[in-house]
């Protein structure tokens, strides 16, 4: 028997490489760690996501499932190590089509595509789907990936045209590293000599715990350098996203409130710590009674998750206007319903990962995040450091969708560095990520809506109980947003919507694309279909008749402007007619399969609800003639790096290629707030617009010109012209400021909102976006299965800064909405991997027709409104309405799994 590691030879793109390693080590690890082929991404270590797809002897494999010895002597190709020509064409096609958003799945997608394209140079859609079916993407909705793979050829990279770029579908400015595999995600940078940190987590939903002899345990485990517990926390061991409600310990002290809560950290030599079996860690658990659903948490006698929150109630929300009860009584037609939604997992393909180290006396943390400044503030608070002694460098984020807003591993990394004095890194496993991260709030919602004889909405009463899980997180935001939005984008003058966020011992529910509004929209939009039917009106026409319009008051009493709701519905009307005719024709000749169509609308306020949430943009010109845009809005794939730069370029009046992007980085970029609430295009966009204009004014003053028709930068010079006079400024002659700029500006924008009174009256948002979607589905009446055939989406974006990226948001949101409707149900303790928790694959997302409506909002940058969350809201109710249209099935609990649909079909039969 040999005891030493074997030397294994691999042929990496034809070149023989030798590695000394354990023969059973995952090939993915060897490629990433020993051969530095970091395009091989680790999303699950289980063959469920395909992010590590490589070619072995020309065939696609999940590198995580191959013991390295099985690749001995084989030809291995990764995105960065393969034939250049095909990859170059794929890169161009992916960039042109916007097929890479966050970029974490992109290498796997491209490698799987290579496997196909070598044998099938011009594949069909179904061939692409079959070949790429093993790679999951959570951002794009897959359609642009399919388009890209079908369009690999000689097409050159699409560049921006000369002149203004707002409104142009330029490829994303940060796209190249995403398509060549060099993007640095959380797990892709580990400082030299860094220790690995692993967390010891609770196996129980609710328990008291005590440690045994930690010192003795550490001493008997070689390589372990430190064991860290709550006793090591010098600051306040309670973080949160809403400071007065901060309640989540970085490491629990004696008491855990959910399964997966960290209680200790082990830091040490990576190989040793990786190999630790933590089941012998000295901790004893005393399980306590627990609740997992909002109904259990709200039950009388349920044990309190937090002693100071009676009835397990974190917060209640309320918006009331008019006389809802009287108006309901007087209504001609009234519908009432109760709906339930499930926990939904964000399922970004990149599990949380990052590294931290000391840079002089500054703790520097590079990790995936959506909220660098909050990370900085909260981590400093937990660690007992001044804010300026913590620096956050967001790594590329391999998806976020809301769950990377909360602190995840940042304080844990900091604790490791402070305790050991060494750089540290941490990479969550898929299961760890799913246990530890936040989820979409499950909701139990009841509503009644009344209309008069002509089909005009008279009143709505709504209540939603939301399971907010173990800690506060964004529970208050959901409890506030839902009552503001539960009417849908329809004029509702008598209204009462209440909400309650209920603590349980389930995973903490936080932010997830829409903050509770998608759940409420299911309730409201399904009831609207019933109401339209009762009124004898076409379902689209009924919505159009009741849609909000300019000058209407919302239930909060806010008078709206720039409402594009009717424009969206009008744009959908011909599609609605076409889809209805096609469904009828299909149904005339099919018995066991029936098609149906459904429609639903959305509205969504952009930015924080009734709270300040400013963004600040800095722009500067260096003495050597470089223009830098300090862009602090984290781009988690949605496109802020591109959109903000487009706005800044046009506002200043310079070619976009002249702009160099800086950041995000808390040491380099002013605060642009969180990438949440569909706020970056609007709020950071406004700051960028203001900064561009301010810099333009600075240049006008500097050059004594009245107008700028041409602005260019050269080596150490700025050349400006008003059309008749051209001036050249020698930048080196000007004094540089503290940031090294000779000309610079910094501009802040904070949307004008007001607080809401006890009835929810006020101005919660400065801007709203609107949209509506049609779903066409086919339901198998015998099996209860649903196939979505087509989605048509019309969204009022005010101004499409980048139509390609806007379509990418629409398609990605629809894919997540489809998952919410049909398959996604996170069950604590049961679906903690991507094998049992299902998200849509490339074969599940139908063709999508996107229609961009541009009704400019005077408050938005160049008229633009937010879009990122809006797009998910109508999808699920549109699909559910289509299922009912096809089959009669009235779905009251999502996801509409086949057994639920079949039961509903049977219940609907006479």
């Amino acid at each position, binding site marked *: 028997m040999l005891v030493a590691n074997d030397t294994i030879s691999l042929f990496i793109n034809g070149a023989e490489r030798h590695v000394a390693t354990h023969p059973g080590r*995952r090939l993915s690890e060897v490629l990433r760690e020993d051969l530095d082929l970091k395009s091989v991404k680790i999303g699950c270590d289980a063959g469920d996501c395909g992010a590590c797809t490589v070619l072995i002897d020309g065939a696609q494999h999940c590198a995580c499932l191959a013991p390295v010895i*099985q690749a001995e002597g084989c030809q291995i190709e990764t995105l960065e190590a393969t034939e250049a020509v095909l990859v170059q064409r794929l890169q161009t096609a992916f960039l042109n089509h916007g097929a890479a958003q966050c970029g974490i799945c992109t290498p796997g997608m491209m490698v799987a595509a290579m496997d196909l394209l070598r044998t099938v140079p011009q594949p069909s859609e179904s061939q692409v789907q079959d070949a790429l079916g093993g790679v*999951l993407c959570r951002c794009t909705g897959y359609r642009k990936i399919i388009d890209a793979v079908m369009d690999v050829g000689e097409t050159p990279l699409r560049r921006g045209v000369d002149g203004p770029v707002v409104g142009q579908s330029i490829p994303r400015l940060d796209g190249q590293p995403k398509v060549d595999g060099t993007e640095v995600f959380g797990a892709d940078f580990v400082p030299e000599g860094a220790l690995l940190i692993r967390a010891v987590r609770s196996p129980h939903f609710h328990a008291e715990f005590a440690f045994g002899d930690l010192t003795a345990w550490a001493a008997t485990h070689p390589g372990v350098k430190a064991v860290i517990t709550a006793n090591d926390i010098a600051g306040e061991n309670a973080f949160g996203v809403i400071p007065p409600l901060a309640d989540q310990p970085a490491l629990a002290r004696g008491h855990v409130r959910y399964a997966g809560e960290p209680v200790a950290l082990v830091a040490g030599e990576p190989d040793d710590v990786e190999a630790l079996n933590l089941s012998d860690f000295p901790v004893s658990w005393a399980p306590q009674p627990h609740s997992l659903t909002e109904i259990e948490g709200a039950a009388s006698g349920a044990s309190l998750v937090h002693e100071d929150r009676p009835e397990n109630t974190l917060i209640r929300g309320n918006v009331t206007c008019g006389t809802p009860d009287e108006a309901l009584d007087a209504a001609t037609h009234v519908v009432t319903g109760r709906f339930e939604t499930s926990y939904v997992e964000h399922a970004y393909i990149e599990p949380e990962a990052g590294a931290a180290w000391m840079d002089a006396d500054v703790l520097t943390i590079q990790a995936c995040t959506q909220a660098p400044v909050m990370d900085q503030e909260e981590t400093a608070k937990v660690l007992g450091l001044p804010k300026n002694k913590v620096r956050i460098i967001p790594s590329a984020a391999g998806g976020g969708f809301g769950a990377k807003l909360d602190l995840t591993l940042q304080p844990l990394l900091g604790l490791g560095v402070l305790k050991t004095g060494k750089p540290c890194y941490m990479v969550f496993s898929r299961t760890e990520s799913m246990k530890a991260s936040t989820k979409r709030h499950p909701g139990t919602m009841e509503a009644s809506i009344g209309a008069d004889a002509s089909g005009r909405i008279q009143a709505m009463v709504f209540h939603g109980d939301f399971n907010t899980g173990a800690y506060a997180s964004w529970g208050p935001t959901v409890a506030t947003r839902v009552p503001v939005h539960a009417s849908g984008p329809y004029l509702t003058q008598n209204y009462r919507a209440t909400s309650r966020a209920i603590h349980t011992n389930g995973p903490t529910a936080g932010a997830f694309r829409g903050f509770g509004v998608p759940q409420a929209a299911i309730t409201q939009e399904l009831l609207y279909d019933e109401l339209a039917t009762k009124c004898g009106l076409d379902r689209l026409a009924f919505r159009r008749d009741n849609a909000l319009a300019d000058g209407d008051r919302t239930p909060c009493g806010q008078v709206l402007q720039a409402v594009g709701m009717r424009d969206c519905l009008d744009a959908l009307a011909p599609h609605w007619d076409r889809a209805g005719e096609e469904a009828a024709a299909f149904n005339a000749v099919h018995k066991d399969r029936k098609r149906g169509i459904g429609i639903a609308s959305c509205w969504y306020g952009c930015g924080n609800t009734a709270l300040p949430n400013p963004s600040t943009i800095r722009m500067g010109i260096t003495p050597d003639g470089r223009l830098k845009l300090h862009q602090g809005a984290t781009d988690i794939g949605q496109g802020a790096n591109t959109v903000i730069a487009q706005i800044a370029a046009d506002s200043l009046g310079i070619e976009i290629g002249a702009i160099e992007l800086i950041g995000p980085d808390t040491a380099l970029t002013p605060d642009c707030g969180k990438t949440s609430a569909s706020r970056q295009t609007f709020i950071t966009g406004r700051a960028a617009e203001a900064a561009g204009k301010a810099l333009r004014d600075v240049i006008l003053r500097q050059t004594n010109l009245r107008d700028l028709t041409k602005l260019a930068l050269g080596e150490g010079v700025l050349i400006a012209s008003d059309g008749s006079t051209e001036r050249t400024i020698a930048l080196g002659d000007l004094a540089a400021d503290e940031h090294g700029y000779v000309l610079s500006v910094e501009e802040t924008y904070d949307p004008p909102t007001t607080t809401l009174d006890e009835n929810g009256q006020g101005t919660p948002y400065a801007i709203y976006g609107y949209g509506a979607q049609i779903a066409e589905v086919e339901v198998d009446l015998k099996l209860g299965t649903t196939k979505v055939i087509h989605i048509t989406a019309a969204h009022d974006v005010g101004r499409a800064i980048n139509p390609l990226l806007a379509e990418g948001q629409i398609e990605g949101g629809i894919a997540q909405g489809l998952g919410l409707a049909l398959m996604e149900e996170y069950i604590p303790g049961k679906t903690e991997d991507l094998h049992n928790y299902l998200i849509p694959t490339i074969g599940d997302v139908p063709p999508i027709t996107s229609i961009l409506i541009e009704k400019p909002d005077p408050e938005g940058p160049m008229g633009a409104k937010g879009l990122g969350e809006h797009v998910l809201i109508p999808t699920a109710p549109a699909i559910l309405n289509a299922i009912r249209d096809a089959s009669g099935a009235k779905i009251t609990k999502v996801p509409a799994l086949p057994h639920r649909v079949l039961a509903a079909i049977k219940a609907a039969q006479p």
Partner: protein
Amino acid sequence: MAASSSYQRPDTLDEALAILAEGDWQVAAGCTDILPATQRKVLDGPIVDITAIDELRGITRTDDGLRIGATTTWTDIIKADLPPAFDGLKLAAREVGATQIQNRGTLAGNLCNASPAADGVPPLLTLDAMVEVSAADHMEQVPLAAFLTGPRQTALRQGEMVSAIQIPTAAMSGQGHFLKLGARRYLVISVAMTAARIVAVDGVVTEAALAVGSCGPVATRLPEVEAALIGRPLDVDQITDAAVGAALKPIDDIRASGAYRTNSAAELLRRTVEAV
């Protein structure tokens, strides 16, 4: 032969069987089940990796029928030129995970993993598959239904491994088909799946093999339903909900209710037979 203390990769079956005779080793091939089962970055032993054993790979015709070597992958099945009786097995192969999994995963591993939702089992049951079990001192052919003794349980004893799957000549006639029902298109564990192989002579069914998976602790043949099909022109109405339901023991789980499984298995089975 590559080796480390706990990871052996022999070149011959005899070597593998000799190692297995020494103690409690786990056999590894495509690793699509055993690597996901560990959170580790290495497949830590004791492991006998059988993928270097040439004699175990591939599909060969024998005097008795067809021999599918233990390391034959799903992709090997998809690419193989096989009679129409194997169409169900080929369809099942295309439904295993996605291409990456089909390129690594083996039929024999699918049997040894013994998941109630193993995609390969229903079509192999309709092919009257025999499992060739080898050990250092013996070799035997075990009917697949006897090999699978329960969820995640097989008849394999210590020192034994599966060296091949044998399809008898008698079961290679007729036309096969397979359907899988799940909540998404790719990478999905089935809610229910059905396989059929039908032999008809002059329009009359002379032989019928039907199997259902994911609807009980192990996939199962349905002899009573099969009998009802034989001796008449193909008539799917003979596949009644009651008869199918009587043969199944489905459970409620995260994917579906047991009652739904029974209902859908009968419907799927009718469609499977109809498509033959």
